[in-house]
């Protein structure tokens, strides 16, 4: 399902950007809203992230961006994972004035994560909540492919996250009574880390031009 969404987004991008006068001006500052989902997240995870971002076009081919995101994931009904993320990145536009306005980007994000197992009416698992932080480098490709007039554009980006430290350790186990979220697995258990390939759709609004 997630890969189908990715393919459909790519098709819409390739057809809707033709015939447009695209571009940005040096000195422009854009703010945007975005929605993201990890296309590689396990099948038993359900959720997406929403966030805000600010982008400043420093030079003809270079922009700087800061962003923040908030996501909650349902871990197959056994618990939830909440993450608050702050990131900074640099964007490079190698084909400025070309169809689709593609760019490459690379950056760093800091992620504060909380995993909360489900409590039941007479079983309180508040003490099993785990909190941790994660640092990641990320890089990817994007496109500000659709301009609604001079101030608003629609963007699409694909981002791969490379973790710099170990993630929180937890495991969804099968038991005779159903699935159970173990937030304290023994050290010898090898847990496959979640891979992150995020697809992001954003609406970006030019609010000012610092060069004017």
């Amino acid at each position, binding site marked *: 399902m997630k890969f189908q969404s990715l393919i*459909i987004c790519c098709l819409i991008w390739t057809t809707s950007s033709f015939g447009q006068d695209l571009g940005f001006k040096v000195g422009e500052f854009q703010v945007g809203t975005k*929605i993201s989902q990890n296309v590689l997240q396990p099948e038993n995870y359900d959720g997406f992230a929403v966030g805000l971002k600010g982008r400043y076009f420093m030079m003809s081919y270079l922009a700087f961006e800061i962003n923040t995101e908030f996501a909650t994931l349902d871990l197959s009904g056994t618990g939830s994972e909440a993450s608050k993320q702050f990131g900074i990145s640099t964007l490079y536009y190698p084909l400025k004035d070309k169809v689709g306005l593609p760019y490459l980007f690379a950056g760093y994000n800091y992620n504060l994560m909380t995993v909360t197992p489900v*409590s039941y009416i007479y079983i309180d698992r508040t003490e099993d909540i785990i909190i941790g932080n994660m640092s990641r480098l990320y890089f990817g490709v994007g496109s500000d492919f659709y301009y609604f007039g001079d101030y608003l554009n629609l963007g699409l980006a694909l981002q791969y996250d490379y973790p710099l430290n170990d993630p929180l350790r937890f495991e969804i186990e099968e038991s005779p009574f159903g699935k159970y979220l173990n937030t304290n697995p023994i050290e010898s258990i090898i847990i496959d880390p979640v891979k992150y390939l995020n697809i992001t759709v954003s609406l970006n609004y030019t609010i000012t031009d610092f060069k004017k």
Partner: protein
Amino acid sequence: MMKLTLTILLLCFLSVIHAADSTKINAGSNLKLGVGYAPGFITENTLTSQLHANLGYEINGLSVRFDTYYFLDSKGDRPRFTFNHQFYLGSFYRFGSKKLHPSIGAQIGLAYAQSNENGVFNAVTGIIDYKPAINPVALVSLGIEYDFTKQLYTFFEGKYISGKHVSNSYPTYLDELRISIGIGFNLINKTTN
């Protein structure tokens, strides 16, 4: 499937908007304030009701808008939430050059909600606690505005909201089909045509 269909429908409207000459439609800028009532429809024969307020800044038909929904009540076979207040930020496009303006929009937001179905017994107080939580939500919107005067308009919008309430207990879907009816005011109106 429904989410994918709605996403494709919304993106298909891009071709309509692209064909329009936006420099002639709704030229000018507006600071707009709208208030209204927003009933919603969720699964299992349940209705919700909210108060809706929005504040937006529009240039040439394109606006950035902040919306807030204050949860009043829900009735039906499965009310499921004690409260479900929501806040959104996003963009809308209003087209048409006469008094009647169709609009289309997309927003992301946060839902501050408390389920009344799955709680945890508190041994100290002796009551069942239901933990409120904040979760991300997103919506797409189609609507119509009718201008009574330059300062006053009425709006009717239909929205599809998607999200999931997760806290310390079983998750509950926040998916909802919501309509919003109200009146709006152009607080600062500068037109160029």
